[in-house]
């Protein structure tokens, strides 16, 4: 019962957050909505008995990604007049909803073919230990190349964002 109400609450936050993220005009409000959604998502992971994912989500998605985004928002300090003028924003959204809705329904229909009961989870499901065991027993290669991915992204980001004198405009 408690879990149900927590779920409803988190879901509410999640949806409100993501809707706000899409709907707000001000970038910073979008960002805080996004943060709210991410935190609620972390809560969802906790509800799914996945404590490690819960922490990782908070640590990376909120602690790193959102903070970095905020930092960028603050450091570029977008003026009100530099924000895109989107008078037809909600009309576009309606259009997008019409566009996306069939896709979503199809996916949902497909997903409901899944079994409807939660599996019995063993001892320590979602704990760091089990996570680590699985990660290093079955998923070493992706784990390794993710590091290369991060490095490549870092190099790319530095290259793009670095200011260099250039007369070759």
């Amino acid at each position, binding site marked *: 019962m408690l879990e149900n109400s927590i779920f409803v609450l988190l879901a509410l936050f999640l949806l409100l957050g993501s809707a706000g993220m899409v709907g707000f005009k001000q970038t910073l409000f979008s960002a805080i909505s996004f943060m709210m959604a991410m935190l609620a998502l972390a809560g969802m992971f906790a509800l799914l008995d996945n404590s490690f994912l819960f922490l990782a989500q908070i640590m990376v998605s909120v602690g790193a990604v959102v903070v970095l985004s905020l930092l960028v928002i603050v450091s570029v300090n977008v003026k009100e007049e530099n924000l895109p003028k989107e008078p037809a924003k909600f009309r576009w959204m309606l259009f997008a909803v019409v566009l996306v809705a069939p896709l979503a329904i199809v996916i949902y229909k497909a997903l409901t073919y*899944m079994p409807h009961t939660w599996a019995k989870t063993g001892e320590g499901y979602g704990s760091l230990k089990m996570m680590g065991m699985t990660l290093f027993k079955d998923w*070493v290669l992706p784990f390794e*190349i993710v590091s*290369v991915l991060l*490095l490549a992204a870092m190099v790319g980001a530095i290259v793009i964002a670095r200011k260099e004198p250039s007369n070759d405009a």
Partner: protein
Amino acid sequence: MFEQLFLILPMAIVVMGAFVLLLLSKTFSLDKLNLVAVFFLSLSFIIEILRFGTTTVCYSFPEIFGKMYIIDDFSILFDLMFTAGAILTLLINTAYFKSRNYYNGEYFALILFSVFGMMILAHSNELVTAFIALEIASLSVFALVGYHKYNKVSSEAMMKYMILGSMTGAFFILGTAFIYGAVGSTNLEDIAAYVNVPAEKDLVLVLIGGIFIMVTILFKMGAVPFHSWVVDVYQGAPFPVTMFMASTFKIALFAIALRLSLIDFASLNIVWSEILQVITVLTLIGGSFLAITQKSIKRMLAGSSVVHSGYMLIAYSSIGLGSDMAAPAIMFYLISYFLSAAGAFGILSFIATGSKKMMTYEDFKGFSERRPYLSAMMAIFMLSLSGFPSTIGFLGKFYIFTSAIESGQILLAGLGIVTAFISVYYYFKLIAMMYFYPSTDQQKKFPFDFSGLLIGVMAMMVIWGGVGTSLIPFIPGANGLIDIAKQAIDSLQNVL
């Protein structure tokens, strides 16, 4: 242990090279960095070439990596193409890098990272690995596309590519999640085993997941409903990057597409081939339209690359309809496209080194008088791209169309031939521009250039691959190539 290590050595060398380049990027000059990058790539290339055909299908470090990292002739052939493409890109553009001031050490590292991603993509026997590999390659390429930072066009191309590319990346992983949900594993062999024992209810999820994955792949190769970025990105990217994308990244996607369709979703192909047929038709027509309306050569080549994707999709949809030769045909076509497109883009960037022109058709007027050899090579590449016989491009198209006819897709083959006919227009237009008009510039002396020589070698290979070997014995020609392609595909199919 060391045998296992040897199996992943080429990849390790490439990523090692990237690290070394990053470390050296501040101290070495561009030339030296270029050479270092080429050195690492060639090392990898040589190892792969020695290995081709001698390794049976195996997994590297099976006790650690599981069955994620597969090594077969198929992936080795792709590795060869990636490394060769990167080497050619770097060598041909040596002068270009020096002529522009926005290149620096990280550029080469990014190229190597990208190659690394593609290699993993070709080797990955597992969807998540494939996804991450795809992301490595894509992210590096995103950064490369925007490398000319203070050029607004380049930045804009990067923006478009990145937004659309990342979005479709989400589709890939969503598809993977669905497949994981249905199967409980993302290993291709497990999935294949699951799919081949059909239980109607559960396959829906696999099917939808597969479609999502396909959407991503089709997007990245620029098939028509998802083609909107191709021309812009190709135009916006700096010339060497365009060349790199055309000669490696496009190929990499077929690596995973072929592996998926041949191993994983083989029994679902029949469901998809109709979708694929529609997409193929759209791609052929839309791509032709894209290519024919352009004035800039770069954009024209970009548009035509969509058409070439369409040709390969013809064969790709034939795979599901029971054509044995379709997969080798794609492999062969990839080789042929690799040679011709890399050559064409190479010449473009080679020319662009000295000038800042847009490279429109008009700019090529009288080119044959200024640079007779280069224009001859360009003509060869154009002929090959248009599928003119006696070039490798013709054989590629021949295999494609034959496989289409073999699988009963007569109309598709007919459409392919029609688009090939249309392509003659825009390719020959360039030849006409080069040869039929007097030069507007005064004659210039051009010194002998290594890059030019390299392009020349590629042109020779295009001819050699097309003419084959009936006159000169002992040299494997077209036969050799198609045999190699067949061998690669066979090794792929032997997995099951």
